[in-house]
Structure formats: C-alpha cells, structure tokens
C-alpha cells in the first residue's frame, strides 16, 4: 500500500511487520523516530507479543539484544554515531557469537566536534566488526532491506546492520509502498536459532578460545560472509518476486554499460548522483553511477565486473580515514587490482555538508578531464582551512579549531546550505 510517510516511520512499521520479539531502545538522533514508532506499536498492542525495553545505554541495548537472541528471540535495536561507538564492544560480541540481531544505523558523523548531521563515519568505524552492512539509497529500500535483513541474518546466524542516512532519509517524508503482514509472513519464516539457551539441552555459549582455535573461528566468520555474497542477491530476487520491487542486492549500476567514467557511492547520495549523471549524459558525457548496497560483505567481483569496462572511477564517499583518505575507495581499489584505470577519491558531505548537484557536476567535469586531485574534498572551504593553518603556524596556542572556524564562517542559524 502506497503511503506518504517519514522514513523512520516506514522503517518502524517494516520492522514491526518482521514480528521482532525483543526491541531495545535508547534515544540518539537521528534514530529516535524509529524506536519511538516501534514503542508506540508495542504499547498499543499492535505488535505483540514483543518486549520493548528502554535500556540505559547503547551498550546495554546491544547486550540485551545479545541475551534475547541467544535465548531464541528475534531481536532488534537501532542507533547512530556515538551510540554505535558506545556499543562497539557488544557489536563485536554479537557477531563473534553468531547472533542474528538486526540493527538500524541512522548514519551520523562522530565527534568531536559533536555533530548530529549525516555522514558514514559511524558505520564505517565498525567496518571490520563482522556484521553484514547494508546501505539504503532511499526510504523504500530502507524499508525493504529491514525485511530482507532478518531473513539473511537468521539464515546465516549473523547480525545485520541496515544503514540509512540520518535525517536525509530518516526524516524525509516520501512515498513508500508498505507491504502487508501476510506478504511479510510468507517471506520471512519464524526464527529458528542455530544455537539457543535451553534448559532441555544446555550448552555453554561464549567459551574462551585460545590460539589453538581462534583463527579458525575467525575464518569461519569470513566464510559466512562469503556465503552472504551469494544469498544477498538471491534474497533480493525472492523479495522482488514476492513484492514486485527490486531493492537490496549487492550493487546497482546506473548507465554503466557504456560509461567511461563511473561514480561509486553508498546511501542516499546515489539519488542526487543519478540526477546529476542524467544531466551530464544529456550533455554527452559517458558517465554512470554504481551504487553499493552491500558494503560488508564487500562484493569484490560484482564491483570489478561493473567497473572494469570504464576508464576512470570516482569513489564518492561520506567517510574519511584521517591520514589516508577514502575508506570505501580502498575496498574499490582492491576490487580493481590489476586493472589500469584512473581512480579518484572524493570525500563529500561530512557532518551533514550538503552535496549539491552543482558541486557534483563541477567535480565530475574535472574528473572527466582528469584534472581532479586523487583525493578531493567536495566544497571544502580552503580559505578557512588555510587561515587556521597559518594561525597554528604562527601562534602556539591557537585555540580550538572548531570555534575558530565558526568565527571565520560567521555562523548563521538555519543556514540553507
């Protein structure tokens, strides 16, 4: 059924359709509307039986989910940014124990300086935690991915993170097609745990594993993710067959067939990129967009297949490995190893900096002319940066960078961009 609703509400309802049995809620922007929505559904009795638990921290949220999942319950939680970092220890534990928890990450920057706006630093910081990481390009996909995520997680007994851009998607009101309970029930069977805490068949879960077996345990987790590479597209197809929508999967190519230049990106910026590319193609530029839906497992083969025909690749990412550059880029380069093509990393939209068609077009023109720096920061205000650098060179105690910059910018509340 078509609805015009907020992304968070769409996700909350989709999660509810998956009949979770334990939901852990701790508030952090921009994830709050999702758990608020679920809390309402549970309290109203629309979603039951289900335990909705107001925990005291994200660390507890993931820990409660671990306990619930180990006891055989379908467990869900959502977080973002600092919250994700605060639960980091438990995140690794959940994947290490192979517990199929599903978690929404409403992507947001990580402080300091504290910043509530969108980028991918948070989920990228958990790149190696052993969770499957799926990225949604728009709210319909976010909705669909959650339903697919439970199926994937429980089949493989691996936790899945569904990443959606904070505010840009979570707070955007747009058209989504909300499936019915019957459809979801038919697609997603009840949770049958691989291992469970059961008084009738007691086991000890979470043993201490020494050098003699630790590497094997780790490799097995990798093997699981390799299986996921096969199951993710299959599940996307099964989903399409039942719901009539092609969402999820590993990657999605847009005008890549004949493209000499391909822009690789994750999340909501893919939409803006497609508009941009459409315009540029109208101007005769042979350019396409490759969206990555599955960042972990990383679809090396699919990415290589999609890019090997091009002459240059621009990885546009909302994450930044300080001291190196791109985070996604390194993975993409791995996919392209041995291929001779120009690679550019464009870091954009950090901390909610708007990514505009205009800026993208300007940047891509330079790229196509191969005038782009290998590592480019989209719309970086060099004036501010250089002034601060000069200040630091001259004065020993130049004061906190962020404040200085704001002074230079002359902040205006409710800036348009």
């Amino acid at each position: 059924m078509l609805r015009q609703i907020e992304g968070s509400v769409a996700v909350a309802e989709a999660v509810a359709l998956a009949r979770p049995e334990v939901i852990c809620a701790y508030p952090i922007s921009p994830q709050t509307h999702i758990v608020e929505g679920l809390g309402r559904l549970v309290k109203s009795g629309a979603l039951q039986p289900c335990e909705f638990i107001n925990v005291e921290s994200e660390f507890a949220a993931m820990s409660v989910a671990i306990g619930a999942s180990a006891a055989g319950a379908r467990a869900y939680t959502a977080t973002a940014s600092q919250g994700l970092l605060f639960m980091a220890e438990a995140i690794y534990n959940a994947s290490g124990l192979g517990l199929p928890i599903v978690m929404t990450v409403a992507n947001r920057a990580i402080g300091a300086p504290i910043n509530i706006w969108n980028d991918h630093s948070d989920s990228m910081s958990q790149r190696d935690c052993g969770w499957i990481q799926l990225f949604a390009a728009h709210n319909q996909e976010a909705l669909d991915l959650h339903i697919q995520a439970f199926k994937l997680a429980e089949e493989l007994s691996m936790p899945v993170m569904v990443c959606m851009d904070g505010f840009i998607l979570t707070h955007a009101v747009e058209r989504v097609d909300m499936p019915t309970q019957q459809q979801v029930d038919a697609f997603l069977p009840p949770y049958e745990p691989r291992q469970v805490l059961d008084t009738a068949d007691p086991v000890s879960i979470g043993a201490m594993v020494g050098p003699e077996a630790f590497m094997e345990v780790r490799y097995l987790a990798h093997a699981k993710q390799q299986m996921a590479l096969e199951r993710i597209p299959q599940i996307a197809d099964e989903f399409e067959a039942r719901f009539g929508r092609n969402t999820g999967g590993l990657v999605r190519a847009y005008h890549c067939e004949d493209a000499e230049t391909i822009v690789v990106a994750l999340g909501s910026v893919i939409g803006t990129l497609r508009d941009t590319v459409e315009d540029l193609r109208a101007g005769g530029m042979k350019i396409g967009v490759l969206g990555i839906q599955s960042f972990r497992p990383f679809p090396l083969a699919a990415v290589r297949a999609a890019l090997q025909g091009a002459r240059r690749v621009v990885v546009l990412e909302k994450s930044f490995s300080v001291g190196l550059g791109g985070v996604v880029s390194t993975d993409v380069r791995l996919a392209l190893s041995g291929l001779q093509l120009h690679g550019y990393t464009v870091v954009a939209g950090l901390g909610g900096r708007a990514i505009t068609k205009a800026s993208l077009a300007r940047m891509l023109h330079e790229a196509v002319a191969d005038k782009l720096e290998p590592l480019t920061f989209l719309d970086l205000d060099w004036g501010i940066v250089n002034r601060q650098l000069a200040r630091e060179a001259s004065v020993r105690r130049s004061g906190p960078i962020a404040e200085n910059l704001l002074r230079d910018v002359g902040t205006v509340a409710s800036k348009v961009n």
Partner: protein
Amino acid sequence: MNHQPPSSLRSQPPEGVTDDFGAARQSSEPIKFYQTGTFTVGNRLLAPEQRSVQASTERSNSLTSGHRACQGCGEALGARYAIDAAMRATNNQIIAANATGCLEVFSTPYPETSWQLPWIHSLFGNAAAVGTGIAAALKVKAAKGGRKDVRVIAQGGDGGTTDIGFGCLSGMFERNDDVLYICYDNEAYMNTGVQRSSATPHAARTATTQAVGPNPGAEFGKGKNLPRIAMAHEIPYVATATVADLHGLEAKVERAMGLHGARYLHILVPCPLGWGAASHDTIRLARLARETGLFPEFEAEAGEITAVTKIRRRVPVEDYLRPQKRFAHLFADAGRPDLIAQIQAEADRNIRRFGLLDES
C-alpha cells in the same frame, strides 16, 4: 530481625534444674541438633528436606569438576552453592549469563566447560543486560506457549559488578527485570592479577594499590557498598552472604527464586591467591569477615532491611586481617595500629548500623 533457621532447629535446650527432680520439666519442644548443629553442611538427624542442597547426592553440581580454578577457590565454591540452590528451587529451570572474569575463564576454556546448565558469556560489563535480554525472550516465548517457569541468573565478580558492569546492573534493577544478579565478591580484579576494584577493602594491598608510602594499600574514603546501592533501587530483594554460611546462602537463594523482578545477591568469596591466604583458609576467612562485622550479612526487601545474621562469636578485625598477606603491612615492623583501628571502626559501624550483636 534475626535470621531464623528452619523451625525444627529453633527450640531452646530444655532446662534441667528444678528444686525437686520429681518435677523435672519435660520439654515439649523439638530438640535442637546440637552435635550436627545447624552449621554443618549435612545432618543425619535432619529430615532430608531440611538438609542443605549441598548435602544431597542429587545436587546438580552446576559447576562440575575439572574447572581450572585455583586450589581453594572461594568463587568456584560460591558459584556451585548458589546455582545448585537455584536449580533446586526451580526444578533445574535456570539459564545463566556470566560476566568476564575468573569464574568465566576457569569454567569455560575451549574445548571444555564445567557448566551443566544453559550458560552464556558475553562481555565484562554487560552480564545484567544479557540477563535482561534472556528474561525478555523467555517472557515472549511463554506468551507464545513456551515454558513459563524458566528463570534467569546473571553473575559476575566484583569488578564486573561494582565497576564496569554497574551501569547495566543499575538499569536492570531500575527496570525491575526478572533477573537474579549474583556478585561473587573477592574484592579485587583477580583474573588480571589482583588489581584494585571499588569493592577492595581499605588498606588492602593490590597490584594497583601497593603497600608503600604513608597510606599503604587501598585508600580509606574510597570504594562503594553495592548491596546498599542495590537497596536504594528498592528492588524486591537484596541479600548478602558468604561461603562460610551455606545454610544462610541457600535460604537466600531460595527466597530470591521465590520472588520475581530484579533481585541481588552479594556473596563474599575469599580468593587465596589475591588475599595471600592459605588455600584451606577460604571458608574460615569468610567466617571471620562476618564475625568481625566487616561483612554484614543481611536481607532487604523493597529497600527495607528484613533480616540480619547476628555475629555469633565476635572477634577483633586483627584476627581476620592477620592471616592475609594483603594486609601484612599492617603488622610488619612497628605495624599500623592506626589503620587497624580505622578498620575496626568500620566493623563497629556495621555492627551498629545493622544491629549485628544481640543486646542480651
């Protein structure tokens, strides 16, 4: 206030002295078992149901042989005492969540586990939250027609409870989740080599509070009293116990399992390694801790003290401190009577606060 043994163990000895033996009184009360007492583990003269769980060959040995705990480990003992009692009280319907620490490491090194009940170890600081999750899952399963009688225990050492796990514990308390949390308190981080925790007693030497300088050992004025903090949450049940009083410990576990909601049991478990004591002194030291007043044993319901275990043979704190190397600096050379006096004052305060001595 006094913690009462089972009724059949409660009567007074009959008085023999009378003016005329023709009138010597016949006691109508049941006889107290003086020889095998109320203090030994078992008692051939008691009805089986009145004997301790540990006296039974049917006990579940939840933590069975082959674990890698040190010789004389109080924690291994306390864990078996408590879990076995809980198993008895619930007809073996217990699931346990364990914090990282000695208990976890010595009980479950791959490829062997000593646990005989469903058990999970997640992290150092989240045992209470994992317990909450299990309890929540069980509640939903029950609503869907699953077993309704499965109960949850979360457990950890003093580090995992009073320090790193404190947030999750307080949250579990505050939500009144249906979990019994058991803290096995050996008063320091033993697993990592005896470092100070917020449960480390004052003046005790640890690897991070060395016995050097003018204020040797753990500093006075620091540390926290978790049982009293737990009481402040006004949860259904809070109790303290030691491995020296098996009957009291089992009675408390039984009481806890008879209630729902958040419950907290704090068990003193001496650590021969960390305390620098002989491996055979484990129970004796726990007994002395109580008899000095340094470790008051009490029960509280909804934030109110409901029972205390009176001191039976009061002893000065020196008797407790002396056998432990972690307090050796209090007795070396000239000794530190000033610090011992401070510790004695703490014991005396407990005795006043909890009424540990019979007025008579």
